[in-house]
């Protein structure tokens, strides 16, 4: 009947549009954004672009790497780029600093948000003024930022979960440790980890332990958790800092053969523990690459190019390949 075929056609068109919608959306973001006239003039005159990279906590252990990425971008592209951001993850301070930068005049902003809700408005304001904004390391999906450079956190959680499951041979009991189970990055990684571990019917997740952020407290929380669950087979750490603490606990209590650990990032202690096979695997998020690529993307926008998200990936290091990382980072220092 006619109505049927009209319905079919509408449905078909609807489906096609739905498929194209994400592409249309990001194209829209790119398209609906116009570079401010003042910035266009500066670029036309050949002046050095002023880029500011705002990281959510310049006092944490990743900040030196983020800074290195920015410095490398300065060396490679000849741009005026600097790392800025609050000492301690303070959303208000980050917002005020960005507002001052907007007033002072800046050609591009790369932002890793302390909190997505707190930073979204200032990102909108910057874009409305014609200043290109990309997010890096920590995304702000509710804002209309032009692109995101960083690790897909849910996917990285899946990778970690699968790594631990394989190390355990598909069975055993696991505890998950994290600095803050309520933080968005932790929720994302935990989601991925539980998805991956859930595929193994003989693996049981006993509990998620929030350790806090102070090093002594992290160690103490893991100690207490292991007291409560002495027969645990594996520990999955969702971040940089409970990884080495878990490794140290296992090592000091002679449990390295019994308890397997998978975690994140490449703190000096973690590298040592991976080399010693106490931590089975750790996942790098490439913080240097994140800030470097973010600056590069902003420069592309200033040149009039269209940009897309960059997934900096989840590089796995085990005792087999950790040596390569150590050598490479030593060479970089020279």
């Amino acid at each position, binding site marked *: 009947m006619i109505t049927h075929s009209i319905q079919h056609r509408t449905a078909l068109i609807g489906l096609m549009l739905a498929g194209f919608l994400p592409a249309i959306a990001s194209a829209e973001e790119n398209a609906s954004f116009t570079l401010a006239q003042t910035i266009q003039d500066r670029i036309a005159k050949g002046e050095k672009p002023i880029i500011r990279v705002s990281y959510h906590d310049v*006092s944490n252990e990743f900040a030196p790497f983020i800074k290195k990425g920015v410095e490398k971008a300065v060396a490679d592209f000849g741009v005026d780029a600097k790392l800025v951001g609050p000492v*301690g993850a303070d959303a208000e301070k980050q917002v005020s600093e960005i507002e001052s930068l907007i007033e002072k005049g800046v050609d591009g902003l790369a932002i890793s948000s302390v909190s997505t809700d707190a930073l979204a408005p200032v990102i909108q304001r910057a874009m409305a003024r014609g200043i290109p904004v990309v997010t890096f390391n920590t995304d702000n999906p509710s804002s209309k930022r032009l692109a995101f450079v960083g690790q897909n956190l849910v996917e990285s959680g899946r990778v970690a979960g699968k790594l631990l499951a394989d190390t355990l041979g598909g069975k055993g009991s696991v505890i998950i440790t994290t600095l803050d189970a309520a933080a968005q990055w932790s929720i994302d990684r935990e989601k991925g980890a539980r998805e991956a571990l859930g595929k193994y019917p003989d693996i049981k997740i006993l509990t998620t332990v929030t350790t806090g952020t102070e090093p002594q407290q992290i160690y103490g929380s893991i100690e207490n958790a292991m007291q409560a669950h002495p027969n645990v087979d594996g520990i999955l750490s969702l971040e940089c800092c409970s990884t080495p603490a878990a490794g140290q606990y296992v090592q000091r209590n002679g449990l390295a053969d019994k308890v397997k650990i998978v975690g994140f990032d490449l703190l000096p202690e973690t590298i040592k523990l991976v080399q010693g096979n106490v931590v089975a695997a750790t996942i790098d998020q490439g913080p240097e690459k994140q800030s470097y690529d973010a600056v590069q993307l902003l420069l592309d926008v200033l040149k009039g190019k269209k940009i897309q998200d960059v997934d900096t990936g989840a590089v796995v290091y085990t005792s087999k390949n950790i040596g390569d990382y150590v050598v490479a980072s030593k060479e970089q220092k020279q």
Partner: protein
Amino acid sequence: MTPQTLSKNASPATDLKARIGSIIAARETGVLLALLVICVFLTFATSSFLTVRNLLNVGRQISLLGIMAIGMTFVLVSREVDLSVGSTYAISGLVTGMLIVRGSALIPALSAGLLVGMVIGAMNGVLSTYGKLPSFIATLGMLSVVRGAALLITDGQPVTVDTTRGGRSEVVDQFYQLGQGQLFGIIPMLLVCFLIVAAISWLVLAKTTFGFRVYAVGGSEKAARLSGIQVFHTKILTFTLMGLLSAIAGILSLAFLPSGQAGRTGVGLELDVIAAAIVGGASLSGGEGTILGTIFGTLIIGILRNGLVLLSISPFWQTTAIGLVIICAVGIDKWTGLRRSQ
């Protein structure tokens, strides 16, 4: 406990009654009772609590908090407060760590860290006395100044004490022994250090002239001055002592977990330190508080944390629980205080 003067003419029975009465009325008894209630509850609620292993763990976990809470007791008794302790703890440990990694011998490295702590303490003291600043403000400012200094000297990078980064192996081994060793093969060194610090501090606060002066200054600054006590000198000494104890804790913390980072180590510690002292009976209005009480207060916080993890209770309850404990501790003290003064 305040010294009780007993009449020479009273009979031994009345003496005993009076002694027992004063023990029951003492603040520390209340805190001890609360501590025992929590312990009894945990013993029944989980089989992992009352084991030698767990208790030694908890003992070690509270040692550094305890050392600093003891320092805070002196400061609170003198009617001041020190909010910069977390930053002092961090920078002292980092200074010692950096020196060891640059090939220093152990004693110079330890001394440098302790000196840094004492200097910061002395600065807090001078700002709060001759500087005429309320100690809350002075130490709040120093909290950021010292944290910033720690970030600057380490450039935000972690400091890891081991031989691969340049530490001499005998020095590194001795440093590890200091933090990770065990007396008689079973008692953690951190706990041993805490007990030594506690014993010496109890002697100083309860039995020396200096201790008496601290109470006098906190009880009434005017009266203390009129009776010839050097109020400013006393206060500067309590702050310097606080700085020294923060440094001891910070250095031991690095000896136990050989990696520290200026942006993370000791952040927020001041709240737990003040809470431990106040739960143990010290008062923000000065003149009250004892080392024994502080030890009980520290134990309550440590055992609460331990218990919440053993019982797999949501970690967000930990923060709520500590807050409730402070409110109850101070509240109960106020209500029983009213009764005592009647």
